[in-house]
């Protein structure tokens, strides 16, 4: 593996001229072994977000006045982490899993908890067992709000009989289809309905002093339920057991191995690589750290330029190349690096935590390389370049791209009439669109 490939293929691009690792594979593995170094001091947790949301709703405040500053602080801290991290592989895994378990602010009033969701459910479990990550996600208020489980009620539960209300299948269906076994496992509509019944009662207590997950027995569908041929008991424990079953299912290992290889190796994951990573997951009871280490050791891993950068990859890599960021971004400051990056994601078509649907953002070239996508990249690069008036485009090109930098791009930058034009050419070059 090339030294720079560890930074681009497995990370977010080289930051300025930060030192390159002598042992790329060892450097990547060390990030998996070390604890998450990201520090998010001064941010509230999801209970704080829900308290703000509750107050806003109670007092009918227009314009999100209490949630807005919490969200601004969240954006500043998490996008600073993306720009500054020295554990870029771990950071990439965190965003990968956050996207796998998408919570989108398009639905469910999740703005108050989208950031805490990533810090509480995703980040601590990036190298844990998959079923632990799954359980943390499915019990988190953000997911329960986003996919409507808070209002799903067992039709034969006390609440269901009293209020004539019933199931909402949304969370159960997406958990089977997207998060765990995938349709390849061959489950039926009856399984979806049954899993929804298993998850009834899993909700969010908005009235509590510290709002958060609650299991409501009065809304839980009574009786045993059958999911994919297995019987699960009534009660909260039935849901936990069902998630353990799904989280360790061979079809789930195959599904997430495919997604992981797709993220790091190729848009068309080689079956041999998928089988290898799925095998590691199987042998380690779903150890995501072991699976990530297996990715590092794949023969094709870190071959530069095979993956097309998503807008998030692209904007982050451009800002890291310019070395923007350093002092913590002041929340809400329009010139703060995190804020520029936040705007970049939106203008390039991938706004933060706002995927259109629960399957999250694609990481495939075909979805990000339409004419308008690339023009948007050139335009944004031009605007970004205005923030680095003293940068030397050629130095930055060499540092950021290393051996991937092509002579044609060097030539084009040399002939640019202005530094700003040179940087725009660098960021619009074919090699900068890839990692």
């Amino acid at each position, binding site marked *: 593996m090339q030294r720079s490939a560890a930074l681009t293929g497995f990370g977010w691009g080289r930051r300025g001229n930060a030192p390159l690792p002598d042992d790329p594979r060892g450097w990547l593995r060390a990030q998996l072994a070390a604890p998450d170094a990201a520090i998010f001091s001064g941010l509230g947790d999801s209970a704080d977000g829900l308290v703000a949301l509750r107050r806003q709703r109670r007092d009918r405040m227009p314009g999100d006045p209490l949630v807005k500053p919490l969200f601004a602080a969240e954006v500043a801290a998490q996008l600073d982490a993306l720009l500054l991290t020295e554990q870029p592989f771990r950071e990439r895994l965190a965003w990968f899993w956050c996207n796998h378990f998408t919570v989108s602010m398009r639905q469910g009033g999740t703005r108050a908890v989208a950031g805490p969701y990533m810090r509480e459910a995703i980040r601590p479990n990036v190298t844990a067992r998959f079923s632990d990550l799954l359980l943390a996600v499915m019990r988190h208020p953000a997911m329960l709000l986003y996919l409507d489980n808070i209002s799903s009620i067992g039709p034969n539960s006390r609440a269901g009989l009293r209020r004539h209300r019933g199931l909402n*299948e949304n969370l159960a269906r997406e958990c089977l289809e997207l998060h765990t076994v995938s349709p390849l496992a061959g489950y039926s509509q009856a399984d979806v309905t049954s899993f929804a019944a298993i998850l009834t009662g899993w909700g969010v207590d908005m009235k509590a002093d510290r709002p958060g997950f609650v299991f409501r027995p009065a809304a839980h569908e009574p009786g045993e339920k059958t999911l994919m041929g297995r019987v699960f008991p009534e009660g909260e424990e039935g849901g936990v057991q069902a998630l353990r079953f799904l989280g360790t299912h061979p079809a789930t290992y195959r599904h997430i191995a495919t997604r992981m290889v797709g993220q790091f190796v190729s848009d068309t994951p080689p079956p041999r690589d998928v089988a290898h990573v799925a095998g590691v997951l199987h042998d380690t009871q779903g150890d995501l750290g072991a699976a990530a280490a297996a990715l590092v050791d794949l023969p094709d891993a870190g071959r530069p330029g095979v993956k097309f950068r998503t807008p998030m990859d692209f904007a982050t890599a451009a800002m890291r190349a310019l070395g923007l960021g350093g002092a913590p971004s002041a929340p809400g400051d329009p010139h703060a690096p995190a804020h520029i990056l936040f705007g970049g994601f939106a203008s390039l078509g991938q706004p933060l935590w706002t995927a259109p649907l629960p*399957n999250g953002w694609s990481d495939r070239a*075909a979805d990000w390389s*339409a*004419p*308008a996508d690339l023009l948007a990249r*050139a335009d944004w690069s031009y605007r970004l370049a205005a923030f680095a008036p003293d940068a030397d485009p050629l130095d930055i090109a060499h540092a950021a791209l290393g051996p991937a930098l092509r002579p044609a791009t060097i030539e084009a930058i040399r002939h640019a009439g202005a530094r700003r034009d040179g940087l725009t050419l660098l960021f*619009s070059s074919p090699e900068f669109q890839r990692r």
Partner: protein
Amino acid sequence: MPIRRRSAFLGLTASWMLGRSSLALAAPAAGADDPRLVVVILRGALDGMAVVTPYGDADLASWRRDLLLPEPGQAGGMRDLGGFYGLHPALAGLHDLYAAGQMTPIHAVAGHYRSRSHFDAQDYLESGADERLDTGWLNRVVSSLPWVASRVDGNGLAMGLTVPLLLRGPARVGSFAPVAGQHPDDDLYARIAALNAADPVTGAAFRNGLKARGFSDDVLGGGAPRAPDGRRPGAFAVLADAAGRILADPHGPRVAALEAGGWDTHAAQKGRLNAPLAQLDAGLAALRRALGPAWGRTVVLVMTEFGRTVRMNGTGGTDHGTGTVAFLLGGPVAGGRVRGTWPGLRPDQLFENRDLAPTTDLRAVASGVLRDHLGLNRAALKRVFPGSPVTPENGLLQA
């Protein structure tokens, strides 16, 4: 054809395009009266029964009493569609078109797949085949058009930042998104395009993007879209307006795809549908205004990946179902009535005891339009929809 500044710019950069593209920048050979086709995808599964409601069906209230709006003629009620169906009141513009004989809903339609996964269903809806393809049926329509090689940007146009699967494939397709703020000048754009010229992914994208943008800028003149009531239009209306103006241009593309979201109403559906329906209605009105006289040669197909459960779920919403409604509108459409075969809502008439049973294949609707509006023959239709054969619907357009 007057030489416009952008055309001159394209001429200057044509050197690096020569040999790589058969695209000609001359005025197209076909006339200004070519037919236009717009396909609107409603992603997220629209509840057809909430939008074109069979209020005349005696079984309706037993499934979803709390989702129903008042009947036509009552305050806040539906707008009547001939005595059995009512149209959602947020679709006022569509109702006017219906009254003018230029809009027809088709009820109990579905794709040829039976999946309640948004993602599978959208893929099949857009690829139009029995197996998964990575090209869309509308792209194959573009390749089948006789006048394909002569357009500035091919014949297809995707509105929005990315090209949907529906329009992906070998035929050249442009995409358009509104530009905001500062951007490079023409010379820098040309150098960016040259730097990418040989790249298999980015080369064609920059090349076509610049051509499309130069062309769009000429046509749009930088003007902001207008709404008659002076309100700021939503994103869908902005794109629909731009699509209309680009399609109306005698030298423009002839096929466009748009998409709109907000339909996945698992909870509190009754209130949640108002805003996306109003946006859809405003967008379709903006499209019609912007097309001007070309509206008389335009057919718009509005479709969604599947319908929703007949029975209201436990949370005032509906879950993923099967049969739903589609719309055809435009000058040539034989409108003013609701089409399709109503399957009924008795328990034994539902699909798998939960969904509106589909009675019309969406591909049959699309085939009817492609045959009668764009003149595609049987062999071309077989290429567009390569799976199991369907019989095109007759009489969708005025004779």
